[in-house]
């Protein structure tokens, strides 16, 4: 058993899942916003990056790791709420390319701002979890406390989000506002507040992903989230952008696929891996692999 666990194959599985779960988190955050406001938030990654950078300045002042996580998430949520109110709200009812352009502009702004304030260098958090692989009977098992922490934290967040939507009054109102805004208003649901809450929630989930990346070996660079965003968008699009479960599954698929292309094919073509998967997935099911509604034209 330990021989199997220490095989290169299992190494790729673990590494792919660890990376994929980050994509899943960001993809989930994209789906939350997409469902409520039909905006694909191109600045999602950059917002998470800024939030984490602010959290990291606090850790420099000597607060503990977990406080840094909490601050990053809270800052991310605040940023999400403000963004919806200031940048997105004026664009409801406008053509769909307007919010795309504005959020692309916001992406550029946040990245330039981060580089201006914190310089274009990698920053990381000294994580409380070891990155050294476990050993079992003398064989290396390609799991570390950090990878376990990463997967458990991400799973915990995703399950909490699922529980929120499924079991709480707030979740019911969020879903109703996304499905039928006018009817929801007639029933007394404060729909515009729900849209803001959707953004807040989504940005918080995104911030967790950036915190995890910043805690890892390679830290976080101002434009690092571009690649994460692209992979996560592909994950969400493969899942159909409508389905939270599809986004999570899509993230894991992309993470594993990237790892296996890297390991078994050629690292040179790895950048194209995501696109190839997206193209193939869209050819098979243009509406997304996990979307029930087959009539919707994509």
């Amino acid at each position, binding site marked *: 058993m330990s021989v199997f666990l220490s095989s290169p194959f299992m190494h790729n599985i673990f590494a792919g899942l660890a990376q994929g779960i980050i994509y899943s988190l960001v993809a989930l955050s994209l789906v939350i916003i997409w469902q409520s406001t039909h*905006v694909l938030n191109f600045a999602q990654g950059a917002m998470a990056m800024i939030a984490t950078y602010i959290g990291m300045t606090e850790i420099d002042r000597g607060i503990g790791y977990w406080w840094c996580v909490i601050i990053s998430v809270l800052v991310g949520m605040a940023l999400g709420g403000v963004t919806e109110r200031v940048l997105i709200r004026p664009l409801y009812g406008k053509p*769909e*390319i307007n919010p795309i352009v504005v959020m692309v502009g916001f992406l*550029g702004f946040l990245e330039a701002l981060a580089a201006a304030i914190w310089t274009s260098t990698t920053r990381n958090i000294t994580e409380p979890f070891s990155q050294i692989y476990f050993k079992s009977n003398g064989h290396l098992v390609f799991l570390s406390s950090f990878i376990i922490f990463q997967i458990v934290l991400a799973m915990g967040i995703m399950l909490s989000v699922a529980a929120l939507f499924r079991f709480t009054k707030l979740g019911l109102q969020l879903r109703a506002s*996304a499905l*039928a805004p006018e009817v929801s208003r007639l029933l007394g649901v404060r729909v515009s507040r729900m849209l803001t809450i959707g953004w807040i929630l989504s940005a918080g989930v995104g911030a967790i992903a950036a915190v995890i990346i910043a805690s890892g070996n390679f830290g976080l660079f101002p434009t690092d989230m571009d690649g994460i965003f692209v992979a996560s968008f592909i994950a969400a699009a493969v899942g159909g952008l409508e389905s939270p479960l599809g986004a999570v599954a899509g993230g894991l698929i992309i993470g594993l696929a990237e790892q296996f292309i890297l390991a078994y094919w050629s690292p040179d*073509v790895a950048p194209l891996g995501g696109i190839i998967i997206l193209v193939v997935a869209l050819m098979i099911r243009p509406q997304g692999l996990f979307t029930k509604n087959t009539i919707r034209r994509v």
Partner: protein
Amino acid sequence: MDWFLSLTRQETTHSRLIAMAFLTVLTLVITFFLPPVADSQLAGGAAIAIVVLGLSWLTGWSGQISLGNSGFMAVGAYAAGIWAHHHASTPLVFTFVLAIVFGGISGLIIAIPSTRLRGPYLAGMTLAFSAAVTPLAQNFTSVTGGEGGLFMNSLVTPRWFLHFFSGPNAAINASAQWSADLAVVVAGVMFFFMANLFHSRTGRAMRLVRDNDVAAELMGVNLARTRTTAFVVSAAYAGLGGALYSLLQASVRPETFPIGLSITLLTLMVLGGIGTLSGAVIGGIIYSFSANLVAHVNSLTGVNPTSNVGANMQGIIFSVLLILTMLFAPRGIVSLQYPLRRLFRARPATPTPKDVHL
């Protein structure tokens, strides 16, 4: 800019040719009075204006949006660069055609799966493409030269042109001016083609598709083919612009084409006004002199240009301008010649899943 619009609006190919030739010659004359530094900036701006025009055509006329045009630029630039690196003496026209063809083909490859998508999906797909281009160029070192890129020496100032110059810096001045003139002529030709395209059957079909794709389909317009055409033309323009831009710099490197460049292109298009020739001209001018603008802002605000803030000032200014223009003047800083009324038509106050068509 109304004079420009009325000139380019001429109803016949012949009159458009005269109008474009007139404007090109006018710009050429202006380059004689500009200092060499400004000439170099203008040359870069002309190359970028070609790319912006292609993007503007795609967004303004076919209603599609692309964040991948920096990627198409890279494809054209590498196609031209790899060729020119090995065959420096090839006529420039051939190198440019190569860039157009490769740009167009890359556009076709992206367009085939993408034209079935709309709006956010398409934007995300093209972003994924441009994000993949830089690492690909870095990885395939044997072909692309990797990080260091390739050098080419194709823009040689002809001997007869040198006669116009004298003094200690004659060669350098002549070279800057020659580059600018060449870029302006290439841009003039591409603008002329686009002016004709705007007035062609394809152009009209494009607007119909943008405004009401169902009606267009009923009238016998092939939606997928029309959208694909728009994409290929846009990518070909980006390919040529990228090649010209790299030839002007005498090198092609992966770092010239980051995702940020696509954001810059979007900004220039939106500032100038989506879907117009004059918008692309204005975008090119803004790009040409953005360094001066940034230096001005830095000195006004007392920011040290070599500091972090100073180094990122352009990114900050451009993105803020993009956001503000889109929020408050989505038709750009000039009024549009071809009003995008339908593109910017009001939709119900809150988005409802049922009426969102992707």
